[in-house]
């Protein structure tokens, strides 16, 4: 595919494997992707433990990105440190509200959460367009290409060491992962969630409140995806335009959660692997003049490959 498009294999391979670690922008983007994949996949994995599919991380992520600017523009009267925190919490709240709809429909009406979260992804894009072309649009921008104002430096997430483009979002995300690991894998909640996920009958016998477990896991998942929106905007992009809508990171997070086998720490390893390969594929596409959407195609193939590998290794164990 790459060769066909006129590229050179050597260049392609070196940009796939070496660019992520040799260039400054490579290191930056790998960690940006890592933070987003890890945050969103934690939520997806958490919901999966309770047997719920959150296909809507992309929509919650979008709601989070929008909320960053809603808070920034409409609560601008707040003093700096407060507003900074409010923007992050606002993003989490945006994601939480976005998943509250499928959660409510699931818990109260038994509506399938897969279908509703998918539907809300489409709504989120339209909602994002609306917000972007009106309420949070920068007044100076040209018609037809709406964009928000750029967040000033004091509202950006700073680098840990100023010369290396790794922000505080990275240790913060890992901390969230570790906290969730202890909360989810090391407490009775794990058994509760797993029981709900595997058999609602058993859960009912055991006196576990199914709606409660479902609500907690789903809302946490939404808040995490919203949070990813905050780190993406405040830690990397600083302004929102239509380009950020079609990223599909929320769908990739589902793959990351599955590859990490729903384990709160395993997901972190999977997230890093996917971040590395995603950036590598992007820079390979650039080096060989292929449209960078080739990344999606590669990830699709890779995902089947990984699942196939999982399957084969499990079969060996049985045999």
């Amino acid at each position, binding site marked *: 595919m790459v060769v066909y498009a006129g590229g050179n294999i050597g260049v392609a391979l070196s940009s796939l494997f070496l660019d992520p670690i040799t260039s400054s922008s490579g290191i930056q983007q790998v960690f940006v992707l890592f933070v987003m994949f890890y945050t969103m996949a934690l939520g997806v994995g958490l919901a999966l433990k309770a047997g719920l599919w959150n*296909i809507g991380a992309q929509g919650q992520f979008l709601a989070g990105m929008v909320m960053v600017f809603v808070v920034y523009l409409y609560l601008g009267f707040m003093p700096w440190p407060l507003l900074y925190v409010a923007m992050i919490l606002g993003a989490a709240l945006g994601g939480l509200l976005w998943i509250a709809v499928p959660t409510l429909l699931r818990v109260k009406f038994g509506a399938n959460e897969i*279908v509703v979260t998918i539907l809300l992804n489409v709504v989120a894009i339209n909602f994002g367009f609306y917000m972007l072309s009106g309420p949070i649009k920068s007044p100076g921008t040209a018609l037809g290409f709406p964009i928000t104002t750029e967040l000033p430096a004091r509202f950006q997430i700073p680098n840990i060491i100023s010369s290396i483009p790794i922000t505080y979002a990275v240790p913060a995300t890992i901390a969230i992962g570790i906290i969730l690991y202890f909360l989810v894998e090391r407490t009775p909640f794990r058994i509760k969630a797993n029981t709900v996920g595997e058999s609602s009958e058993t859960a009912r016998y055991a006196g576990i409140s199914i709606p409660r477990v479902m609500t907690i896991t789903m809302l946490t998942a939404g808040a995490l995806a919203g949070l990813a929106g905050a780190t993406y905007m405040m830690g990397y992009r600083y302004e929102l335009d239509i380009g950020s809508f079609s990223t599909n990171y929320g769908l990739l997070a589902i*793959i990351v959660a599955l590859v990490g086998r729903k384990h709160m720490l395993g997901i972190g390893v999977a997230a890093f692997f996917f971040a590395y390969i995603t950036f590598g594929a992007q820079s390979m596409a650039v080096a060989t003049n292929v449209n960078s959407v080739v990344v999606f195609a590669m990830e*699709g193939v890779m995902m089947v490959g990984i699942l196939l590998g999982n399957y084969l290794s499990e079969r060996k164990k049985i045999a």
Partner: protein
Amino acid sequence: MTVNYSDVAIAVISTTLTLSPFYLFAGMGEIVSEKSGVANMGLEGIMLMSLVTTFIVDAVTGNPWIALLAAIGIAGVFGVVFGFFALRVRLDQIALGLAVYLFGLGFSLILYDVAFSSGSAPNYVSLPPIFSGWGTVPVIGIILLKQNILVYLSIVLVVLTALFLNRTSLGLRVRAVGENPKAADNMGVSVNKVRFLAIMFGAVMFGVAGSYFAGNFVPGFETNIIAGRGFIVLAMIYFANWKPYRVLFAALSFNIVYALQNEYISISGSSVASVSTLYNMLPYIFLLVLIPVFGRKARAPKFLLKPYRKG
């Protein structure tokens, strides 16, 4: 400003009829597949591939019918691949579906870029209307006669799918392997064979739907051009409780809401983009509101998403 309401009504009906086949072909394909216990969530990726194939083959051969066949062919290839991984390897169907979607999303644009690299755009319009020259006849001509044959076939397909599922023995077997594969197996039904046929029927229908999208929705091609409309089909089926006629109802009502807001925007002449994007959300909100109302009694095939292991 005076509004000619009969013109509006004609435009709304015409738009509804033009857009519905996409949802109907995809919907019938997905229903049969899901009835057998296999959800193909990669449908949008498959449709993107057949959409691009339509453009490319039409540009090469100049024949939209060959383009349609090629689109069906490429969708069939995806059906075989999907069937292999879902049935033989028993991969998680949701993960597999998303993988197929991502693959189609990326690879369709690569194909398009390679095929139309010199900046030339495909000049594919759509299949010709069956009654050419009648398109200017008032009311009937504009609403019915200017449509192409796939519009009529899509309605026929709904009837045939309902008959197939409820009145034929193969249809019974499709439902059986989705409801109780163990029992079906004991009765001598080859579960995976029936499921494979159902998947292939679905894939072929996605091929037709993807090909129909070209020229009837958004002109030209860009990344993610189907923009979630394939995923909407999954919501329609859920709302319709896996019943073909209700999918027809869902598709028509969804498109009427779409056409109404579309007409409203063009009549009100609102150039404020922010307002029109708000109206664009209406059809989806409409579906969303219907789901708790009608989806309450929805009952998925019992073994949907569950691979079957013999013995």
